[in-house]
């Protein structure tokens, strides 16, 4: 993977909106952490409410692949529901849903762009939430949550 030009054609094949919306590759591919952990600022393990606790770290006792459970998990990190868009002194996450189930989380950067860990692939910075929306895997961003940056 060529990090030098900050683009990856394979990623663009998987997420068709990437090239038109704009993005940069920011890491090498790794299985060490997934998107939920990355959005929660914990790039050390994979976060997921897996049925077997060994298969994923989860910050709350409720383990269910549902939007309500993901909202509760980020609430435990002092996030609360909000609208989209950049808000001064707040950091935001966006949760994506496909076919009614949570699939992905992205975190907003201070300049209003977003960062995501893409499956087993790389971390990227993308100019919009739409950049990684699709009709087969991540679906659409449906829930935004924020917390004061000072609480981070």
């Amino acid at each position: 993977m060529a990090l030098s030009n900050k683009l990856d054609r394979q990623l663009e094949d998987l997420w068709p909106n990437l090239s038109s919306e704009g993005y940069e590759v920011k890491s090498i591919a790794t299985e060490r952490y997934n998107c939920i952990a990355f959005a929660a600022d914990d790039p050390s393990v994979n976060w997921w409410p897996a049925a077997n606790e060994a298969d994923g770290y989860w910050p709350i006792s409720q383990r269910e692949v549902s939007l309500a459970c993901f909202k509760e998990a980020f609430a435990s990190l002092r996030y609360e529901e909000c609208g989209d868009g950049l808000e001064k002194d707040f950091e935001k996450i966006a949760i994506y849903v496909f076919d009614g189930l949570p699939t992905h989380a992205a975190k907003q950067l201070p300049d209003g762009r977003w960062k995501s860990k893409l499956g087993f692939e790389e971390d990227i910075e993308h100019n919009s939430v739409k950049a990684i929306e699709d009709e087969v895997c991540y679906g659409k961003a449906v829930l935004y949550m924020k917390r004061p940056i000072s609480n981070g």
Partner: protein
Amino acid sequence: MSQTAPRYHFVDISADIVDANKPNPGLVSGLERKFREYADKWYAETRRDSSITRILSNENYLRVIELGTPVIPLILKELQSRPRPWFLVLRVLTKNENVGRGYPGNFEKMAEAWINWGRERGIIK
């Protein structure tokens, strides 16, 4: 909407674990070919997924379970090169729920625990 864990149905496995240090070219090559095919398809089909539920319920991943206990050495060798989440397959095939349990979501530590488990039993070097 919630997603429940898949239920697995597989035949009773009576074969012993293949000794990776004992040559058995016919058996190993056929098994390796099947394992490689399923593993590569699993990687390709789940590489963009963040959902561990989806990753662990992929059809090709579940087909590795059908290969039975002889595939265990191949999975352990695979973990030595990349810490992908083979842990559900290993738990089912070995009936051991405890290996790596202290490291939820930490694939590197869990892989290390399973590799050590295999070494202690002479399954891999």
